[in-house]
């Protein structure tokens, strides 16, 4: 479903990814791990095509990075993206933030309300739909961001350090939510440097170091995370 084929991404300051190749399957739970600056965020940005590879190819469910351009909005409607800093619109309520992601796709007005409530219920925030982000805790704000990512029924949810700003309890809650989402069939790619999280469940694990893949559990006979050291 997501394929990196000899991908290199260079910036004026230096290379962020060097000759990276991996394959993430439909419905997988995949950790992308590595220390700060290892290239995790760059890899995710290449998946939602905020960046183009300097060389090589990124393929996401039929979309090819070399084509890009006009297809990108269509691709992003099939992806859900979650960030460490939530990226919610502060002047809109939780339900308006979620509805916004539907409205930009041109969804029929009559379907927006029910779909928004469905995902807010799924993330456990149905009772706080009318609250503004500033009235919610960090964990709750991240749940709104996840609801927004889910509302278009994405094929994959990309989460870039989604628990980086959260306390331990909120982290566990968000991680469990991501696992539930994965259990319902949506692939989840979680970029994190939190090794406790990585070790807590068996999953596809890709470890990056200085922009290169140093370990890929899929190349090593299947899911490895949670089964010991990668």
């Amino acid at each position, binding site marked *: 479903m997501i394929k990196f084929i000899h991908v290199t991404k260079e910036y004026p300051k230096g290379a962020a990814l060097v000759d990276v190749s991996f394959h993430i399957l439909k419905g997988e739970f995949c950790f992308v791990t590595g220390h700060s600056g290892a290239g995790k965020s760059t890899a995710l940005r290449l998946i*939602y095509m*905020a960046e183009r590879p300097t060389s090589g190819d990124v393929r996401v469910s039929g979309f090819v990075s070399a084509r890009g351009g006009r297809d990108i*909005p*269509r*691709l*992003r*409607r099939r992806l859900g*993206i979650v960030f460490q800093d939530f*990226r*919610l*619109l502060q*002047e809109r309520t939780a339900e308006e933030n979620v509805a*916004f*992601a539907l*409205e*930009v*796709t041109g969804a029929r*007005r009559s379907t927006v309300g029910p779909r928004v409530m469905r995902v807010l219920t799924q993330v456990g925030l149905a009772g706080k739909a009318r609250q503004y982000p500033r009235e919610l805790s960090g964990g709750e704000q991240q749940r709104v961001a996840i609801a*927004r990512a889910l509302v*278009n029924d994405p094929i994959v949810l990309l989460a870039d350090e989604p628990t980086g700003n959260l306390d331990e309890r909120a982290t566990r809650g968000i991680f469990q939510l991501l696992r539930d989402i994965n259990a319902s069939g949506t692939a989840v790619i979680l970029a994190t440097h939190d090794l406790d999280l990585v070790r807590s469940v068996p999953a596809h694990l890709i470890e990056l170091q200085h922009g290169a893949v140093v370990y890929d559990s899929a190349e090593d006979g299947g899911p490895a995370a949670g089964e010991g050291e990668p």
Partner: protein
Amino acid sequence: MRLLLRETALAFRRAPLPSALSVVTIAFSLFVIGLYGLVTVNIHDAIGSVARRVEVVAYLQRGTPVETVETAMADVQAFPEVESVRHVSSAQALARAQRELPEFQSIFQDLEANPLPASLEVRLKPRYRDAASAAAVADRLRSFSFVDDVRFGGDWVAKLDRLRTIAGAVGAVIGAAFALVGIMIIGTTIRMAVLHRREEITIMRLVGATDGFIRRPFLLEGLIKGLLGGALALGLCYGAWALVNTYLLRAAFFTGAEAAAGIAAGGLLGLGGSLFSIGRHLRSV
């Protein structure tokens, strides 16, 4: 469409002060351009009223038969430059001189015969009120055998031409400078509105909004701000004109069509500024 209107209304509601400041900034930029427009309109009117006096006078030989004069008048009226032609008999010329030159009353009373010749007074159409056209008409009038002399004040018509050229050139340069400054201020104002919402634009893109979808509310917002700014600028111009008209001198105001064009120009500037600013921002992120 409903979503577009809602998003645009939301932009005004969420940031009422910046929106109002944008409108006021646009209004003051257009106000300066409008004041300049008023000055231009009035200078144009003043030059026009002087130009209306451009007249070619053909003095006729004594004893020219009335039928000959009437036939000639029809010919002259057919000249492409001519707006009207009027026959002034020598008696009418004398009566006019007595009326307009009362200080020479005693001389007029001592006259035994009327020394003033009859004449044809030829007025030119507005676009031919210049030295070259007046001279061309004068030459043609001289070719009539019964015409004694032709006068059209060549010197002052040439000066009027120069004045018109200078006013036109200075007007174009200052007008272009004002318009450019106005466009830059309006562009900057709208760019700030775009930057104020850059986070929102980023999020819209991440959830799959097309550039067209992102652009539309900004364009409508720019158009509305431009129209409101234009209307406010027109009101300010009217206020300034009323003050000048009451306390300084009689001046002309914009016609209805010119006022509407001014407001529409505000709208277009707002729309153009938004198109430019949002386009540049979308390309840069």
